[in-house]
């Protein structure tokens, strides 16, 4: 090899050869991927930990309480002095009430906001509104819960005099507000992904922006929008603090929205803040409820990923 210039020091290649830490380098190259793989394994271990914990403790629970009376029971009276009853249906009913109201509130508003942002808003408007939605998404749920209890419920009571302090309506609405940013931003992503050429094609034939949004963009982005709604529903099902603070703690198996309710999550919180002794049926019941909750959200997430996969847009 020819060196460009003559100089007193050795050539770089010679210096490199002298520095020669190849063995160490090779060892590092071998060890690092293994270490990183183990780190990546933590997330899998977490899932395994969650599933194993839930199953294990739930099985213990079913040794004390028959599984059928849990699944089909319409009475949830764990603290009863006479005969405790562990029928999950009232808690599921409570969860579904909250979720239903939340979805009814969030889907129209979230979708409208998404359409506005993706199809109508100017860049400036988008630059202001999107961060605000992000803030809305970043508000801790405990704050929303406090808001539901101290503001939304009193306001609703002036409209519906029958409304109790703890009810399904107020936390349901607030959970709805909580998931609006999720629906809005995920749906907007889906709509923004629709190629402009499709919009231009319709606009060039004289379609109005509204027609483009409803007849071109919405159908094209449907899978993304559906997935966003399903994911948001899953969030609503798992929401804890809003319902704990504003929903109350009365498990009831009915379609009453104005009285105190209890969701699965709120029950877990109720037991955790109380002093249920370790090893009692009440202690194990939170795992059985947690497991049920986990299955619900898992199903939702699975559904969302199926929707995105199945209807992946072809553009």
């Amino acid at each position, binding site marked *: 090899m020819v060196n460009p210039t003559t100089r007193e020091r050795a050539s770089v290649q010679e*210096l490199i050869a002298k520095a020669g830490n190849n063995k160490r*380098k090779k060892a590092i190259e071998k060890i690092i991927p293994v270490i990183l793989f183990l780190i990546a394994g933590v997330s899998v271990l977490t899932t395994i930990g969650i599933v194993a914990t839930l199953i294990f403790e739930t099985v213990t629970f079913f040794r004390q309480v028959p599984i059928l009376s849990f699944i089909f029971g319409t009475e949830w009276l764990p603290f009863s002095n006479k005969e405790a009853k562990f029928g999950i249906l009232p808690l599921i009913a409570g969860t579904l009430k909250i979720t239903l109201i939340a979805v009814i509130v969030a889907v129209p508003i979230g979708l409208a906001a998404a359409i506005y942002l993706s199809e109508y808003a100017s860049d400036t408007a988008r630059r202001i509104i999107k961060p605000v939605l992000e803030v809305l998404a970043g508000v801790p749920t405990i704050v929303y819960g406090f808001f539901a209890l101290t503001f939304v419920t009193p306001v609703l009571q002036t409209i519906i005099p029958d409304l109790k302090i703890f009810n399904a309506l107020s936390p349901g609405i607030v959970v709805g507000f909580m998931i609006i940013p999720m629906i809005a931003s995920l749906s907007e992503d889906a709509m923004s992904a629709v190629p402009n050429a499709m919009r231009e094609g319709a606009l060039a034939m004289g379609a109005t922006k509204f027609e483009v949004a409803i007849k071109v963009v919405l159908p094209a982005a449907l899978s993304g929008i559906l997935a966003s709604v399903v994911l948001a529903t899953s969030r609503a099902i798992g929401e804890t603090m809003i319902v704990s603070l504003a929903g109350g703690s009365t498990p009831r198996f009915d379609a009453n929205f104005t009285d105190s309710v209890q969701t699965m999550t709120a029950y877990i919180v109720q037991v955790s803040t109380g002093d249920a002794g370790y090893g009692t049926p009440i202690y194990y019941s939170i795992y059985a409820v947690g497991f049920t909750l986990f299955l619900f959200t898992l199903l939702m997430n699975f559904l969302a990923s199926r929707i995105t996969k199945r209807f992946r847009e072809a553009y």
Partner: protein
Amino acid sequence: MVQLMNRTETEAVVSPPEAPVREAAKPVVYDTKQLNLWYGSHHALKNIDLPIRENEVTAIIGPSGCGKSTYIKTLNRMVELVDGVRTSGEILYRGRNIFDAKYSVEELRTRVGMVFQKPNPFPKSIYDNIAYGPRIHGIKNKKILDEIVEQSLRGAAIWDEVKDRLNTNAYSLSGGQQQRICIARALAIEPDVILMDEPTSALDPISTLKVEELVQELKENYSIIIVTHNMQQAARISDKTAFFLNGEVIEFDHTDKIFQNPADQRTEDYISGRFG
């Protein structure tokens, strides 16, 4: 193009002749023997034989998709960054087969520098860009690093332009300057061979000229292999030219011979602009 492909099938059996000896032949740096390469099921390089000599500029030309970039990336095994690449045959670098299991790619790439299509400086200071190579290979002495940086920047004919702002981010430079920084970065480990993969394709004409002049200077001390889709560039700066088509070497000869009196009809068609 399709017709040409069919013709290739029959004539490719004749492996391209080594460039005829006009002067005392310089030693061979890179000797490619019966190299085949597949991306998955796509046969990208077919029976390549190519002896590349020391202290020459060897240009590789051909239409897009002919395998010229693939070939130059095979020379320092960068092509293996793509999943599903398989090779057969051998490439001898200074007599050692680079596909040999004992030959580490890092060692090979320390000896063989590369300049890429798009200027790709690191988002670091100019100084850190140049010092990157020496540093990763264990040179820590600040004084020696300073020396190497200056010498490499001088070698890439950009020292005067940047000597007062060695600590600014390399991205603040123009595209042409960035590319010369990238050349300086490659020079910093004093490689034996420099591979250049269309180094001027993203540059304006004036920057291109500067890089071409630089290549001419560098050839005194380095063996240079340059891929270009610009035939005039090949004619201007190279000593030898290899014409690639559909993954095969159609012709390999002295550059003036290729451009003035090509042996193969397809070479003539290509350089006269009938396709490509």
